[in-house]
Protein backbone atom coordinates (compact mmCIF):
# COMPACT_ATOMS: atom_id res chain seq x y z
CA UNK A 1 0.00 0.00 0.00
CA UNK A 2 1.31 3.42 -0.91
CA UNK A 3 2.10 6.34 1.35
CA UNK A 4 -0.76 8.28 -0.26
CA UNK A 5 -3.21 5.57 0.78
CA UNK A 6 -2.24 5.81 4.45
CA UNK A 7 -2.23 9.63 4.42
CA UNK A 8 -5.71 9.51 2.89
CA UNK A 9 -6.96 7.15 5.59
CA UNK A 10 -5.50 9.36 8.34
CA UNK A 11 -7.27 12.40 6.82
CA UNK A 12 -10.52 10.41 6.71
CA UNK A 13 -10.10 9.43 10.37
CA UNK A 14 -9.50 13.07 11.34
CA UNK A 15 -12.59 14.17 9.39
CA UNK A 16 -14.71 11.48 11.10
CA UNK A 17 -13.45 12.50 14.55
CA UNK A 18 -14.11 16.16 13.77
CA UNK A 19 -17.66 15.18 12.79
CA UNK A 20 -18.13 13.35 16.10
CA UNK A 21 -16.67 16.31 18.07
CA UNK A 22 -18.98 18.70 16.26
CA UNK A 23 -21.99 16.57 17.13
CA UNK A 24 -20.93 16.34 20.77
CA UNK A 25 -19.75 19.85 21.56
CA UNK A 26 -20.67 22.39 18.87
CA UNK A 27 -24.12 21.53 17.51
CA UNK A 28 -27.02 23.42 19.10
CA UNK A 29 -29.74 21.19 20.58
CA UNK A 30 -32.29 19.99 18.06
CA UNK A 31 -35.61 18.22 18.32
CA UNK A 32 -34.97 14.70 19.65
CA UNK A 33 -37.66 13.23 17.39
CA UNK A 34 -36.99 14.66 13.92
CA UNK A 35 -33.88 16.84 14.34
CA UNK A 36 -35.35 20.23 13.40
CA UNK A 37 -34.41 23.51 15.09
CA UNK A 38 -36.31 24.30 18.30
CA UNK A 39 -38.27 27.55 18.66
CA UNK A 40 -38.05 28.44 22.39
CA UNK A 41 -41.73 29.42 22.68
CA UNK A 42 -42.89 25.94 21.56
CA UNK A 43 -40.17 23.92 23.28
CA UNK A 44 -41.11 20.74 25.16
CA UNK A 45 -38.59 19.24 27.60
CA UNK A 46 -38.94 15.65 28.65
CA UNK A 47 -37.13 14.88 31.89
CA UNK A 48 -36.26 11.20 32.01
CA UNK A 49 -35.93 8.95 35.02
CA UNK A 50 -32.13 8.96 34.63
CA UNK A 51 -32.28 12.82 35.04
CA UNK A 52 -31.34 13.49 31.41
CA UNK A 53 -33.50 15.80 29.28
CA UNK A 54 -34.81 15.38 25.73
CA UNK A 55 -35.89 18.52 23.91
CA UNK A 56 -38.62 18.71 21.25
CA UNK A 57 -39.73 21.36 18.77
CA UNK A 58 -43.48 20.82 19.20
CA UNK A 59 -46.17 18.92 21.07
CA UNK A 60 -46.57 16.67 18.01
CA UNK A 61 -42.93 15.48 18.10
CA UNK A 62 -42.98 15.16 21.88
CA UNK A 63 -46.12 12.98 21.83
CA UNK A 64 -44.73 10.80 19.05
CA UNK A 65 -41.56 10.21 21.09
CA UNK A 66 -43.56 9.81 24.32
CA UNK A 67 -45.72 7.03 22.81
CA UNK A 68 -42.60 4.88 22.42
CA UNK A 69 -40.81 5.87 25.62
CA UNK A 70 -43.52 6.62 28.19
CA UNK A 71 -41.96 4.29 30.76
CA UNK A 72 -38.64 6.12 30.84
CA UNK A 73 -40.18 9.59 31.28
CA UNK A 74 -40.27 11.14 34.75
CA UNK A 75 -42.11 14.36 33.91
CA UNK A 76 -42.72 16.67 30.96
CA UNK A 77 -42.12 20.42 30.88
CA UNK A 78 -44.08 22.44 28.32
CA UNK A 79 -43.75 26.13 27.44
CA UNK A 80 -46.56 28.65 27.98
CA UNK A 81 -47.05 30.36 24.61
CA UNK A 82 -47.96 33.69 26.22
CA UNK A 83 -45.19 34.20 28.78
CA UNK A 84 -42.60 31.62 27.75
CA UNK A 85 -42.60 29.99 31.21
CA UNK A 86 -41.75 26.30 31.51
CA UNK A 87 -44.48 24.44 33.40
CA UNK A 88 -45.25 20.86 34.25
CA UNK A 89 -47.56 19.39 31.63
CA UNK A 90 -50.22 18.34 34.18
CA UNK A 91 -50.58 22.00 35.19
CA UNK A 92 -50.91 23.30 31.62
CA UNK A 93 -54.01 23.86 29.46
CA UNK A 94 -53.90 22.40 25.94
CA UNK A 95 -55.91 23.79 23.03
CA UNK A 96 -56.20 22.26 19.57
CA UNK A 97 -57.00 25.04 17.12
CA UNK A 98 -56.71 26.05 13.46
CA UNK A 99 -53.46 27.90 14.14
CA UNK A 100 -50.38 25.87 13.25
CA UNK A 101 -47.27 26.22 15.44
CA UNK A 102 -44.97 24.18 13.24
CA UNK A 103 -45.68 23.94 9.53
CA UNK A 104 -43.36 20.97 9.02
CA UNK A 105 -45.46 18.63 11.14
CA UNK A 106 -48.76 20.53 11.14
CA UNK A 107 -48.85 20.77 14.94
CA UNK A 108 -52.03 22.54 16.11
CA UNK A 109 -51.82 21.91 19.83
CA UNK A 110 -51.09 25.02 21.91
CA UNK A 111 -49.98 25.26 25.52
CA UNK A 112 -51.09 27.82 28.11
CA UNK A 113 -50.38 28.32 31.78
CA UNK A 114 -53.60 30.31 32.44
CA UNK A 115 -57.06 28.87 31.72
CA UNK A 116 -58.25 32.29 30.50
CA UNK A 117 -55.47 32.47 27.89
CA UNK A 118 -56.45 29.00 26.66
CA UNK A 119 -60.13 29.97 26.35
CA UNK A 120 -59.29 33.21 24.54
CA UNK A 121 -57.09 31.33 22.06
CA UNK A 122 -59.74 28.67 21.51
CA UNK A 123 -62.35 31.31 20.77
CA UNK A 124 -60.10 33.33 18.48
CA UNK A 125 -58.78 30.38 16.42
CA UNK A 126 -61.80 28.05 16.53
CA UNK A 127 -60.19 25.61 18.89
CA UNK A 128 -61.19 23.20 21.63
CA UNK A 129 -59.59 22.35 24.95
CA UNK A 130 -57.89 18.95 24.90
CA UNK A 131 -56.42 16.61 27.51
CA UNK A 132 -52.80 16.52 28.54
CA UNK A 133 -51.19 14.35 25.81
CA UNK A 134 -48.54 13.25 28.31
CA UNK A 135 -50.93 11.95 30.92
CA UNK A 136 -50.42 8.27 31.63
CA UNK A 137 -53.50 6.17 32.32
CA UNK A 138 -53.09 4.53 35.70
Amino acid sequence: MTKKFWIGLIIILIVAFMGVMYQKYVKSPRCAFEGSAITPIFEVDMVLKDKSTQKFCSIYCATQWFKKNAKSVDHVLVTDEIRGNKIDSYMAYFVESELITNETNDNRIHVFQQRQDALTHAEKFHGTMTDDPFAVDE
Partner: protein
Amino acid sequence: MIVNIYTLIMLFVSFVSLSLGVYLFYSTLKMIYGFQKYISTETKSKFEQKGYLIFLVACVALSIRMLAWPWFYFMLQSFVSEVPGAMCMFGVTQILPSTVTFLQIIKPIAFFIMGGWFLCYYVDKSIPAAPFAKRILYLLLVVCGVLLTDSITDIVYVFRMKPLMSVSCCATFFDVPLRPSAMIPQAILGSHFEKILFVLYYVTNIILIVLLFMTLSKKWQSLSPFLKKIILYSRAAIGVVNIPVVIFSFFEIFAPKIMKLPYHHCIYCFMGNGAVPDAPIILGLFVMGTFAIGWMGILRLICKHDEAQTVTERLILKVNNFSAFCMLASLIMVTVHLIFS
Protein backbone atom coordinates in the same frame (compact mmCIF):
# COMPACT_ATOMS: atom_id res chain seq x y z
CA MET B 1 -38.78 29.67 -10.43
CA ILE B 2 -36.78 30.29 -7.27
CA VAL B 3 -33.92 32.66 -8.03
CA ASN B 4 -30.77 32.19 -6.00
CA ILE B 5 -27.11 31.57 -6.71
CA TYR B 6 -27.65 27.81 -6.82
CA THR B 7 -30.40 27.92 -9.45
CA LEU B 8 -28.49 30.45 -11.55
CA ILE B 9 -25.36 28.30 -11.57
CA MET B 10 -27.45 25.20 -12.27
CA LEU B 11 -29.13 26.94 -15.22
CA PHE B 12 -25.76 28.13 -16.55
CA VAL B 13 -24.28 24.63 -16.26
CA SER B 14 -27.36 23.07 -17.87
CA PHE B 15 -27.44 25.47 -20.83
CA VAL B 16 -23.69 25.12 -21.44
CA SER B 17 -23.82 21.32 -21.27
CA LEU B 18 -26.98 21.27 -23.41
CA SER B 19 -25.44 23.33 -26.20
CA LEU B 20 -22.15 21.41 -26.04
CA GLY B 21 -24.10 18.16 -25.88
CA VAL B 22 -26.11 18.95 -29.04
CA TYR B 23 -22.90 19.81 -30.94
CA LEU B 24 -21.21 16.71 -29.56
CA PHE B 25 -24.07 14.41 -30.53
CA TYR B 26 -24.17 15.77 -34.08
CA SER B 27 -20.36 15.68 -34.52
CA THR B 28 -20.04 12.20 -33.07
CA LEU B 29 -22.78 10.86 -35.32
CA LYS B 30 -21.12 12.50 -38.33
CA MET B 31 -17.75 11.08 -37.37
CA ILE B 32 -19.10 7.56 -36.93
CA TYR B 33 -20.70 7.68 -40.38
CA GLY B 34 -17.42 9.02 -41.82
CA PHE B 35 -15.41 6.09 -40.49
CA GLN B 36 -13.68 4.19 -43.32
CA LYS B 37 -11.11 1.43 -43.29
CA TYR B 38 -8.82 2.95 -45.94
CA ILE B 39 -8.44 6.73 -46.24
CA SER B 40 -5.82 9.09 -47.64
CA THR B 41 -3.24 10.73 -45.38
CA GLU B 42 -4.78 14.18 -45.89
CA THR B 43 -8.25 13.01 -44.95
CA LYS B 44 -6.81 11.11 -42.00
CA SER B 45 -5.16 14.28 -40.68
CA LYS B 46 -8.44 16.21 -40.96
CA PHE B 47 -10.25 13.35 -39.30
CA GLU B 48 -7.80 13.33 -36.41
CA GLN B 49 -8.10 17.08 -35.89
CA LYS B 50 -11.89 16.80 -35.82
CA GLY B 51 -11.54 13.88 -33.41
CA TYR B 52 -9.40 15.93 -31.03
CA LEU B 53 -11.98 18.72 -31.05
CA ILE B 54 -14.82 16.29 -30.33
CA PHE B 55 -12.94 14.69 -27.45
CA LEU B 56 -11.97 18.08 -26.05
CA VAL B 57 -15.59 19.27 -26.14
CA ALA B 58 -16.66 15.96 -24.61
CA CYS B 59 -14.19 16.35 -21.74
CA VAL B 60 -15.48 19.87 -20.95
CA ALA B 61 -19.18 18.96 -21.25
CA LEU B 62 -18.90 15.76 -19.22
CA SER B 63 -16.81 17.37 -16.46
CA ILE B 64 -19.42 20.09 -16.04
CA ARG B 65 -22.24 17.56 -16.09
CA MET B 66 -20.58 15.33 -13.49
CA LEU B 67 -20.28 18.27 -11.09
CA ALA B 68 -23.99 18.96 -11.56
CA TRP B 69 -24.86 15.90 -9.45
CA PRO B 70 -23.63 17.18 -6.06
CA TRP B 71 -24.67 20.68 -7.10
CA PHE B 72 -28.26 19.45 -7.57
CA TYR B 73 -28.41 18.53 -3.87
CA PHE B 74 -26.91 21.89 -2.85
CA MET B 75 -29.69 23.48 -4.87
CA LEU B 76 -32.41 21.33 -3.24
CA GLN B 77 -31.00 22.24 0.18
CA SER B 78 -31.17 25.94 -0.74
CA PHE B 79 -34.90 25.53 -1.47
CA VAL B 80 -35.70 24.24 2.04
CA SER B 81 -36.20 27.71 3.52
CA GLU B 82 -38.35 28.75 0.53
CA VAL B 83 -40.84 25.87 0.58
CA PRO B 84 -43.53 26.22 3.26
CA GLY B 85 -43.50 23.23 5.58
CA ALA B 86 -40.19 21.82 4.36
CA MET B 87 -37.74 20.79 7.06
CA CYS B 88 -35.21 19.14 4.79
CA MET B 89 -34.71 18.25 1.13
CA PHE B 90 -37.53 15.69 1.38
CA GLY B 91 -40.04 18.54 1.62
CA VAL B 92 -38.59 20.10 -1.53
CA THR B 93 -38.89 16.79 -3.38
CA GLN B 94 -42.66 16.87 -2.73
CA ILE B 95 -42.98 19.64 -5.31
CA LEU B 96 -42.75 18.23 -8.86
CA PRO B 97 -42.12 14.77 -7.36
CA SER B 98 -41.85 12.86 -10.65
CA THR B 99 -39.29 15.29 -12.11
CA VAL B 100 -37.17 15.23 -8.94
CA THR B 101 -37.33 11.42 -8.77
CA PHE B 102 -36.28 11.19 -12.40
CA LEU B 103 -33.38 13.59 -11.76
CA GLN B 104 -32.30 11.66 -8.69
CA ILE B 105 -32.15 8.48 -10.80
CA ILE B 106 -30.57 9.87 -13.95
CA LYS B 107 -27.83 11.86 -12.20
CA PRO B 108 -25.97 8.89 -10.70
CA ILE B 109 -26.44 6.97 -13.96
CA ALA B 110 -24.98 9.93 -15.89
CA PHE B 111 -22.09 10.23 -13.43
CA PHE B 112 -21.32 6.53 -13.76
CA ILE B 113 -21.42 6.38 -17.56
CA MET B 114 -19.44 9.61 -17.92
CA GLY B 115 -16.79 8.40 -15.48
CA GLY B 116 -16.51 5.15 -17.44
CA TRP B 117 -16.16 7.07 -20.69
CA PHE B 118 -13.38 9.25 -19.25
CA LEU B 119 -11.37 6.19 -18.23
CA CYS B 120 -11.79 4.53 -21.64
CA TYR B 121 -10.77 7.77 -23.30
CA TYR B 122 -7.67 7.92 -21.09
CA VAL B 123 -6.61 4.44 -22.25
CA ASP B 124 -7.29 5.29 -25.88
CA LYS B 125 -5.33 8.54 -25.65
CA SER B 126 -2.34 6.77 -24.11
CA ILE B 127 -1.85 4.61 -27.22
CA PRO B 128 -0.71 6.34 -30.43
CA ALA B 129 -2.82 4.10 -32.70
CA ALA B 130 -6.01 4.97 -30.74
CA PRO B 131 -7.43 1.45 -31.14
CA PHE B 132 -10.69 2.14 -29.30
CA ALA B 133 -11.63 5.39 -31.08
CA LYS B 134 -14.73 3.89 -32.72
CA ARG B 135 -15.94 2.13 -29.58
CA ILE B 136 -15.41 5.31 -27.57
CA LEU B 137 -17.39 7.29 -30.11
CA TYR B 138 -20.27 4.83 -29.83
CA LEU B 139 -20.12 5.10 -26.04
CA LEU B 140 -20.02 8.88 -26.41
CA LEU B 141 -23.31 8.73 -28.30
CA VAL B 142 -24.94 6.98 -25.34
CA VAL B 143 -23.30 9.44 -22.95
CA CYS B 144 -24.60 12.36 -25.05
CA GLY B 145 -28.13 10.96 -24.87
CA VAL B 146 -27.96 10.80 -21.08
CA LEU B 147 -26.28 14.22 -20.91
CA LEU B 148 -28.99 15.86 -23.04
CA THR B 149 -31.82 14.23 -21.06
CA ASP B 150 -30.25 15.27 -17.77
CA SER B 151 -29.61 18.86 -18.90
CA ILE B 152 -33.10 19.34 -20.34
CA THR B 153 -34.75 17.91 -17.20
CA ASP B 154 -32.61 20.19 -15.03
CA ILE B 155 -33.72 23.26 -16.99
CA VAL B 156 -37.38 22.17 -16.90
CA TYR B 157 -37.18 21.53 -13.15
CA VAL B 158 -35.52 24.84 -12.28
CA PHE B 159 -38.01 26.85 -14.38
CA ARG B 160 -41.09 24.99 -13.13
CA MET B 161 -40.05 24.93 -9.45
CA LYS B 162 -42.45 27.21 -7.60
CA PRO B 163 -42.88 26.98 -3.82
CA LEU B 164 -46.63 27.60 -3.96
CA MET B 165 -47.87 24.59 -2.01
CA SER B 166 -47.30 23.62 1.59
CA VAL B 167 -45.52 20.30 1.98
CA SER B 168 -45.32 17.75 4.78
CA CYS B 169 -42.42 16.95 7.07
CA CYS B 170 -40.15 14.00 6.32
CA ALA B 171 -41.22 12.38 9.62
CA THR B 172 -44.70 11.76 8.18
CA PHE B 173 -43.13 9.62 5.44
CA PHE B 174 -39.92 8.14 6.83
CA ASP B 175 -41.00 7.51 10.42
CA VAL B 176 -44.26 5.65 9.87
CA PRO B 177 -44.25 1.90 10.60
CA LEU B 178 -45.19 1.02 7.00
CA ARG B 179 -42.29 2.95 5.42
CA PRO B 180 -40.79 1.13 2.38
CA SER B 181 -37.26 1.21 3.83
CA ALA B 182 -38.50 -1.01 6.71
CA MET B 183 -41.06 -3.11 4.85
CA ILE B 184 -38.70 -4.36 2.12
CA PRO B 185 -35.91 -5.65 4.42
CA GLN B 186 -38.57 -6.98 6.80
CA ALA B 187 -40.11 -9.00 3.96
CA ILE B 188 -36.71 -10.43 3.04
CA LEU B 189 -34.94 -10.78 6.39
CA GLY B 190 -37.81 -11.17 8.84
CA SER B 191 -39.14 -9.07 11.69
CA HIS B 192 -35.75 -8.65 13.43
CA PHE B 193 -34.17 -7.37 10.26
CA GLU B 194 -32.17 -4.58 11.92
CA LYS B 195 -29.61 -6.90 13.49
CA ILE B 196 -29.27 -9.01 10.34
CA LEU B 197 -28.95 -5.88 8.18
CA PHE B 198 -26.28 -4.49 10.49
CA VAL B 199 -24.24 -7.70 10.26
CA LEU B 200 -24.87 -7.93 6.52
CA TYR B 201 -23.58 -4.37 6.03
CA TYR B 202 -20.27 -5.17 7.69
CA VAL B 203 -19.96 -8.63 6.09
CA THR B 204 -20.57 -7.48 2.49
CA ASN B 205 -18.38 -4.40 2.86
CA ILE B 206 -15.50 -6.29 4.47
CA ILE B 207 -15.64 -9.07 1.85
CA LEU B 208 -15.70 -6.46 -0.90
CA ILE B 209 -12.70 -4.62 0.57
CA VAL B 210 -10.77 -7.89 1.00
CA LEU B 211 -11.48 -8.84 -2.62
CA LEU B 212 -10.39 -5.37 -3.77
CA PHE B 213 -7.15 -5.65 -1.81
CA MET B 214 -6.60 -9.16 -3.13
CA THR B 215 -6.00 -7.83 -6.65
CA LEU B 216 -3.42 -5.43 -5.23
CA SER B 217 -1.42 -8.16 -3.52
CA LYS B 218 1.69 -9.82 -4.99
CA LYS B 219 0.04 -13.25 -4.88
CA TRP B 220 -2.59 -12.12 -7.40
CA GLN B 221 -0.22 -12.60 -10.35
CA SER B 222 0.44 -16.20 -9.37
CA LEU B 223 -3.24 -17.15 -9.36
CA SER B 224 -4.67 -19.12 -12.28
CA PRO B 225 -6.76 -17.15 -14.84
CA PHE B 226 -9.84 -19.20 -13.90
CA LEU B 227 -9.51 -18.29 -10.21
CA LYS B 228 -8.90 -14.67 -11.12
CA LYS B 229 -12.10 -14.67 -13.18
CA ILE B 230 -14.09 -16.16 -10.30
CA ILE B 231 -12.76 -13.51 -7.90
CA LEU B 232 -13.51 -10.67 -10.33
CA TYR B 233 -17.05 -11.87 -11.03
CA SER B 234 -17.81 -12.47 -7.37
CA ARG B 235 -16.45 -9.01 -6.56
CA ALA B 236 -18.77 -7.46 -9.13
CA ALA B 237 -21.71 -9.49 -7.78
CA ILE B 238 -21.00 -8.49 -4.17
CA GLY B 239 -20.59 -4.88 -5.31
CA VAL B 240 -24.12 -4.98 -6.76
CA VAL B 241 -25.61 -6.74 -3.70
CA ASN B 242 -23.84 -4.22 -1.47
CA ILE B 243 -25.80 -1.31 -2.96
CA PRO B 244 -29.27 -2.17 -1.55
CA VAL B 245 -27.67 -3.45 1.67
CA VAL B 246 -25.95 -0.10 2.25
CA ILE B 247 -29.02 1.92 1.23
CA PHE B 248 -31.36 0.05 3.60
CA SER B 249 -28.73 0.03 6.38
CA PHE B 250 -28.39 3.79 6.20
CA PHE B 251 -32.15 4.36 6.21
CA GLU B 252 -32.92 1.94 9.00
CA ILE B 253 -29.83 1.79 11.21
CA PHE B 254 -27.01 4.23 10.59
CA ALA B 255 -28.83 7.50 9.82
CA PRO B 256 -30.98 7.36 13.02
CA LYS B 257 -28.04 6.19 15.14
CA ILE B 258 -25.49 8.68 13.84
CA MET B 259 -27.99 11.58 13.94
CA LYS B 260 -28.87 10.51 17.49
CA LEU B 261 -32.54 10.52 16.48
CA PRO B 262 -33.53 6.87 17.00
CA TYR B 263 -36.98 7.28 15.44
CA HIS B 264 -36.00 9.43 12.48
CA HIS B 265 -35.10 7.54 9.31
CA CYS B 266 -34.79 10.45 6.87
CA ILE B 267 -31.69 10.15 4.68
CA TYR B 268 -32.13 13.76 3.51
CA CYS B 269 -31.90 15.04 7.10
CA PHE B 270 -28.83 12.85 7.54
CA MET B 271 -27.27 14.24 4.39
CA GLY B 272 -28.18 17.87 4.48
CA ASN B 273 -29.50 19.38 7.69
CA GLY B 274 -26.08 19.68 9.35
CA ALA B 275 -26.68 17.17 12.14
CA VAL B 276 -23.81 15.06 10.77
CA PRO B 277 -21.45 17.42 8.93
CA ASP B 278 -19.38 14.65 7.36
CA ALA B 279 -22.40 12.61 6.16
CA PRO B 280 -22.01 13.70 2.49
CA ILE B 281 -18.38 12.47 2.62
CA ILE B 282 -19.46 9.09 4.03
CA LEU B 283 -22.07 8.63 1.30
CA GLY B 284 -19.83 10.12 -1.41
CA LEU B 285 -17.01 7.70 -0.60
CA PHE B 286 -19.39 4.75 -0.81
CA VAL B 287 -20.75 5.93 -4.16
CA MET B 288 -17.27 6.50 -5.62
CA GLY B 289 -16.03 3.13 -4.33
CA THR B 290 -19.00 1.30 -5.83
CA PHE B 291 -18.84 3.18 -9.13
CA ALA B 292 -15.12 2.42 -9.38
CA ILE B 293 -15.92 -1.32 -9.33
CA GLY B 294 -18.28 -0.74 -12.28
CA TRP B 295 -15.69 1.39 -14.07
CA MET B 296 -13.20 -1.47 -13.87
CA GLY B 297 -15.82 -3.64 -15.57
CA ILE B 298 -16.33 -1.06 -18.33
CA LEU B 299 -12.56 -0.83 -18.87
CA ARG B 300 -12.29 -4.62 -19.15
CA LEU B 301 -15.23 -4.72 -21.54
CA ILE B 302 -14.26 -1.89 -23.90
CA CYS B 303 -10.47 -1.64 -23.68
CA LYS B 304 -9.70 -5.24 -24.72
CA HIS B 305 -6.70 -5.04 -27.07
CA ASP B 306 -3.20 -6.56 -27.07
CA GLU B 307 -1.58 -3.20 -27.66
CA ALA B 308 -3.46 -1.56 -24.83
CA GLN B 309 -3.20 -4.34 -22.29
CA THR B 310 -0.42 -2.76 -20.22
CA VAL B 311 -2.08 0.66 -20.09
CA THR B 312 -5.48 -0.85 -19.31
CA GLU B 313 -4.10 -3.09 -16.59
CA ARG B 314 -2.21 -0.21 -15.00
CA LEU B 315 -5.31 1.99 -15.02
CA ILE B 316 -7.49 -0.82 -13.65
CA LEU B 317 -5.00 -1.22 -10.82
CA LYS B 318 -5.25 2.50 -10.02
CA VAL B 319 -9.07 2.41 -10.11
CA ASN B 320 -8.99 -0.71 -7.94
CA ASN B 321 -6.78 1.07 -5.43
CA PHE B 322 -9.13 4.05 -5.47
CA SER B 323 -12.18 1.83 -4.97
CA ALA B 324 -10.55 -0.04 -2.07
CA PHE B 325 -9.64 3.26 -0.43
CA CYS B 326 -13.14 4.73 -0.82
CA MET B 327 -14.93 1.63 0.49
CA LEU B 328 -12.57 1.29 3.45
CA ALA B 329 -12.76 5.01 4.25
CA SER B 330 -16.57 4.98 4.18
CA LEU B 331 -16.66 1.93 6.46
CA ILE B 332 -14.16 3.51 8.88
CA MET B 333 -16.13 6.75 9.06
CA VAL B 334 -19.39 4.93 9.83
CA THR B 335 -17.64 2.84 12.49
CA VAL B 336 -16.00 5.88 14.13
CA HIS B 337 -19.39 7.57 14.34
CA LEU B 338 -21.07 4.49 15.78
CA ILE B 339 -18.39 4.02 18.42
CA PHE B 340 -17.94 7.60 19.55
CA SER B 341 -21.39 9.12 19.06
